[in-house]
């Protein structure tokens, strides 16, 4: 719990969740609180320190989105438009954010909404979480009027008049409301309901390398934007070179005439300061930026840089080392198109169960050198999940003579098997899995991979699992 001085009184500035459970609220006299909870731990409020930590936290949050701004005293804005897919959706992003913050011992609540005002209200006075697009009005109207970021005087004036909820305020005729509570109330109400635009001015980390350009006349043509990005990228790479650094994550922030912002983010697999390469990564995405009435300023921020001492030169095909550099650029370009988790390499896993034999690794991870056992005859295409088939076998433990798969009957001419595949011994009996695999060649030469999930005597069923041909 922290206290602050108001005149000669010492009042509670903020209380931790435990203190709140004990009934301590903000604005209560410290003496009263001490009477209620004798062994209370009191710290003097340090607004400057708090602001500094808030800024620190905001800079940390830049890993989630390029547009982050501290909202003193206790909030952080994060504009996640266009970045949520990198974290697997809004829900996953929110969970990850809260988890990370909680690990650092910070109790936080977060909300995602169409407009900053609504998110602010729902995070503090609602249940938090995600407000579905277009539902800001529903989400905010049941909340108390404090959720509108109003001064204490305005809120108490509203309470005196019996206006408790945002919905009540919104239902009032606008002109008398403005006369009674001032313009601020009207503005905040519009911001929360999404009728008024509210810009978020992103912070830029002090140590980050930036290149920016402001325009006397706003620009909006795609070619112009691309040209500027190329110039900025050159400038940025020049300053990075002086610091001996290469960029891993690069944000491009646009400031529009109407104060609305847009931002793009790219990442590289390896630290790079090849300006042409970096500019090219933005090329695809720039088309998605809506310039509106024009763009006033473009800022390029290298918000994650790594030491990069060696001098990058034009790659030669013959040199092995240079070839690796080239590959990282290809990976960057592919990643810029499809997302980081969609570009990968496959590495072997110690298992014989076909579904578990593969693990995705990052495309530039060092070659594992390991491989699946070569002598295994495995199909190139796997049916996931396996499909059940009807078979006719001549003898119980023989491969089938006929089978019906997807309503087509196949006559088996040749067969090889069984190859028994069991789950790994260290998994124990709970996940015990026994499969007898057969390779079959049907009458037209097509080769299939089928299995029986238990011995025939135990009522095993047959499944189609893969295709050789």
């Amino acid at each position: 719990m922290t206290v602050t001085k108001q005149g000669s009184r010492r009042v509670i500035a903020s209380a931790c969740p435990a203190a709140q459970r004990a009934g301590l609220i903000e604005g209560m006299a410290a003496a009263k609180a001490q009477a209620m909870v004798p062994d209370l731990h009191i710290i003097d409020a340090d607004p400057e320190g708090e602001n500094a930590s808030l800024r620190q936290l905001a800079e940390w949050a830049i890993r989630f989105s390029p547009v982050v701004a501290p909202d003193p005293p206790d909030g952080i804005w994060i504009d996640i438009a266009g970045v949520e897919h990198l974290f697997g959706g809004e829900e996953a992003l929110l969970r990850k954010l809260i988890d990370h913050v909680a690990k650092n011992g910070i109790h936080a609540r977060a909300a995602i909404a169409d407009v900053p005002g609504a998110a602010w209200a729902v995070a503090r006075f609602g249940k938090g979480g995600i407000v579905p697009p277009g539902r800001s009005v529903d989400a905010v109207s049941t909340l108390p009027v404090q959720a509108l970021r109003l001064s204490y005087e305005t809120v108490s004036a509203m309470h005196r008049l019996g206006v408790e909820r945002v919905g009540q305020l919104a239902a009032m005729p606008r002109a008398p409301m403005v006369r009674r509570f001032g313009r601020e109330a009207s503005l905040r109400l519009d911001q929360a309901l999404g009728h008024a635009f509210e810009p978020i001015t992103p912070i830029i980390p002090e140590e980050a390398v930036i290149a920016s350009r402001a325009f006397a006349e706003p620009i909006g043509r795609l070619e112009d934007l691309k040209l500027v990005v190329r110039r900025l990228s050159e400038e940025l790479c020049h300053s990075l070179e002086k610091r001996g650094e290469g960029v891993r994550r690069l944000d491009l922030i646009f400031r529009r005439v109407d104060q609305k912002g847009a931002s793009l983010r790219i990442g590289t697999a390896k630290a790079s300061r090849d300006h042409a390469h970096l500019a090219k990564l933005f090329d695809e995405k720039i088309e998605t930026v809506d310039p509106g009435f024009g763009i006033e300023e473009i800022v390029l921020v290298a918000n994650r840089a790594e030491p990069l001492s060696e001098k990058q030169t034009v790659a030669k095909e013959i040199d092995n080392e240079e070839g690796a550099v080239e590959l990282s650029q290809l990976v960057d370009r592919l990643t810029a198109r499809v997302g980081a988790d969609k570009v990968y390499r496959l590495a072997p896993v110690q298992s014989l169960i076909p579904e578990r034999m593969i693990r995705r690794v990052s495309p530039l991870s060092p070659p594992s050198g390991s491989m699946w056992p070569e002598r295994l005859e495995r199909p190139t295409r796997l049916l996931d999940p396996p499909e059940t088939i009807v078979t006719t076998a001549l003898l119980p433990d023989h491969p089938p003579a006929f089978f019906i798969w997807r309503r087509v009957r196949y006559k088996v001419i040749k067969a090889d098997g069984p190859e028994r595949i069991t789950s790994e011994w260290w998994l124990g009996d709970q996940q015990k899995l026994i499969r007898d695999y057969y390779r079959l060649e049907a009458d037209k030469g097509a080769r299939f991979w089928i299995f029986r999930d238990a011995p025939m005597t135990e009522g095993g069923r047959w499944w189609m699992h893969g295709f050789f041909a």
Partner: protein
Amino acid sequence: MAIGREVIDDLRRQIERLGAVYGSRKSLPFGVSALDRHLPSKGLTLGALHEVMEEGPASEFAGSATFFTAGIAARLKGPVLWCLTRRDLFAPGLIQVGLHPDRVIYAETCRDADVLPLIEEGLHQKGLGAVIGEVSRLGLTASRRLQVAAEASGVPALVIRRWWTGAQKDLTKLPTAASTRWRVSPVPSEAVPAGGLKRGRWEVELVRCRGAEPRSWILEACDAKGRLALPADLADRSNPQKIRRPAPG
């Protein structure tokens, strides 16, 4: 008239230049002399677009076409980019034709239309062994783009034509700008008296090729190094009879 002759001379020079480019391009021999002799560049031209499709009972899974394509990639040097839309590829199967998992980078998209840009992006990268793409829709313009990109970098583009519906299968019959089109279909392999399965056998058809007649061969499937072979019991026949099977279904 003078202008006319000038224009014709210029065109002639251009054609010569084109021919020189075409003739000088590197190629990868299949190692089967019957096949290599038939192809104009004595093998699979490297800086070009090649289509592979599968015919047969389970042709929508393209099992043999995948082996065939991976076998080509395995015999080339350098990393391989594999662009796919569906997650049915089973990588452990690829090492049977010699394609090591460390060599393959996969790029995955959910939409068929997004695969083509990925393939093109890969083709711009010099030093790649090959770019393999799984595509169901490949139009004339798109295939021409890929062909040009492949010519510029010398990286071969191998496109496996996939289809999931009858309509998509019909699409694979439309012409493209690919320099060759192959059709791989499984045929009954050599009988083994004691049971079991021997090396698979394919009918490899060259359906379309710039500068060569369509033709088909019966070949043994790719071995552990990705090489095709002429079947032993057919090797003495210099011109294997073309086997025409009735259309499935």
